């Protein structure tokens, strides 16, 4: 019987990689998750604790996938603390995926927003000329720089890191780097995932210059399947219509970059 993506599958964590003091990658075997499209996510059950939406991280081993989680509140800390040999439940993949252009591409990621970007890198053509911008608060929090370089070995590419405090790479917000890049280069596609304000500015920078841009949004998610409504942003449901939206569409959304909803569904400012 084919697996119904809405039914929870239990997998065992096989490897835990510390990316930074607060970010870990948990690797597990699952054919379906190893083949998701860039931008797709899973609902991840940490038994007895919570269930969270997580982008599906790549693994270098075939048939495997991973989650890269930053410890934050109780739920993500629960996932962060899962040990090798422990079980978690997964359902999905959910959501649409990035529409990958060819030519000069700009990928912008912050924190765990880099996860879908890494998977996107596994889909580029060898002829594509790729620039990856990685934003972080400080040196400690930089990860996936080496991975990005490794994945792009056979491509013309640049991987540039910026830190807010300048402790590593260029100093300043990654969105300033974005602005600089789109000013100089006519990209064929810009892709962004990270904090909403980073995505908002990146979309503005690219879209206002007529450059094709897509962002993968995050919202509170309960069901992941378009029932509960908790992930709405304007009239869009992130889990079902997204998570990936075009700049064109986002520029007309009243809530993107301005509001999100909390667990009770109350609009809060970013």
């Amino acid at each position, binding site marked *: 019987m084919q697996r*119904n993506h*809405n*039914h*929870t599958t*239990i997998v065992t964590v096989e490897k835990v990689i510390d990316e930074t003091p607060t970010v870990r990658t948990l690797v597990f075997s699952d054919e379906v998750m190893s083949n998701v499209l860039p931008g797709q996510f899973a*609902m991840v*059950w940490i*038994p*007895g*604790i*919570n*269930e*969270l939406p997580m982008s599906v991280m790549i693994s270098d081993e075939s048939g495997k996938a991973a989650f890269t989680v930053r410890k934050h509140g109780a*739920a993500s800390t629960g996932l962060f603390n899962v040990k090798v040999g422990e*079980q978690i*439940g997964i*359902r999905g993949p959910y959501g649409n995926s990035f529409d990958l252009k060819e030519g000069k591409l700009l990928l912008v990621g912050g924190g765990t927003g880099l996860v879908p970007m890494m998977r996107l890198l596994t889909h580029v053509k060898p002829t594509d000329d790729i620039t990856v911008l990685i934003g972080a608060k400080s040196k400690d929090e930089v990860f996936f720089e080496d991975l990005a370089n490794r994945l792009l070995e056979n491509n013309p590419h640049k991987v540039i890191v910026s830190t807010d405090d300048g402790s590593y790479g260029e100093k300043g917000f990654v969105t300033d780097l974005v602005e600089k890049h789109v000013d100089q280069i006519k990209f064929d596609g810009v892709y962004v995932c990270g904090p909403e304000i980073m995505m908002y500015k990146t979309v503005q920078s690219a879209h206002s210059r007529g450059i094709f841009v897509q962002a993968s949004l995050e919202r509170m998610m*309960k*069901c992941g*399947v*378009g*029932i*509960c*409504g*908790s992930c*709405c942003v*304007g*009239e869009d*449901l992130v889990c*079902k219509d997204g998570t990936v939206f075009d700049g064109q569409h986002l520029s007309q959304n*009243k809530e993107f970059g301005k509001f999100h*909803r*909390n*667990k*009770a*569904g*109350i*609009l809060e400012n970013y």
Partner: protein
Amino acid sequence: MEPNLATSIGPIQLDRPVMLASGILGISLDVFSRLYRSGAGAVVTKSLSTEPWEGYPNPTIFSVKGGGWINAVGLSNPGAENFAKMIEPNQDVPIIVSLVGSIPEDFEKMIKQFENCKVTAYELNLSCPHVAKVGLEVGDDPELVKKIVTTVKNSTNVPVIAKVGLGTTHYLNTVGTAIESGIDAITAINTVRSMAIDVETQRPILSNKFGGLSGTPIKPIALRCVYEISSKYDIPIIGCGGISTWEDAVEFFLAGASSVQLGSAIGDNWIDVFNEINTGILQYMEKKNYSKIEEMIGLAKKS
């Protein structure tokens, strides 16, 4: 005469007979407009309480192998006041405001907060099966139902619907009490108390352990409730539970419902389901030579 999808549920007039059920995608006015444009005849809001509620932690929803969903979102909602502010600009979308509370005063207070809103009807949730002190725990207490319905009817001229479900008190008694207290219509049914256990980790999956079963599994149960209510009482009924095709909707009309609500079908077929059902109903009406939904209501009771 061309068939027409308009229907009336007692004092409530709708252009189309299939509504969005409470709790489904039900927290944003923008989403409501989109659903209305997609063919919903009305939208029912998430059940609102006097204070904002975060609801239960995840997992709050579970997809059942045999079909359907079990949910225990725990009535998370932004609270009636916030919600009223959000829908104030609305003019076009027929919005039915669903309310939960433990005492008559809760409902009275919330209805005041909607004074400046265009509200098509209120739906009193007397039937949520997984939150303490509200929902079914209210619906199962006939005295309380009486007080709440009476109070609400005295607080507003907007039509009031009671939503019932399978609880520890027989739902037909709850319906009877609500009717005696002046209710305008009945929605039947809510989700059915259920559970799922993961055999690997050996624990209940939902954080609340128990949740409510919705979707295709409960359709035969819901249909029987509508038929039983319409056989026993003379009250407009909104059928709800597992409706996902036009045939399902027509079955409910034939059993005595004058309109229907759906929720879970959206999780399976997304929001196109409204127009698919509308189209199917229209074709059925053409074939049977009906010009109005009304002509088919309750026909299955005649045989």
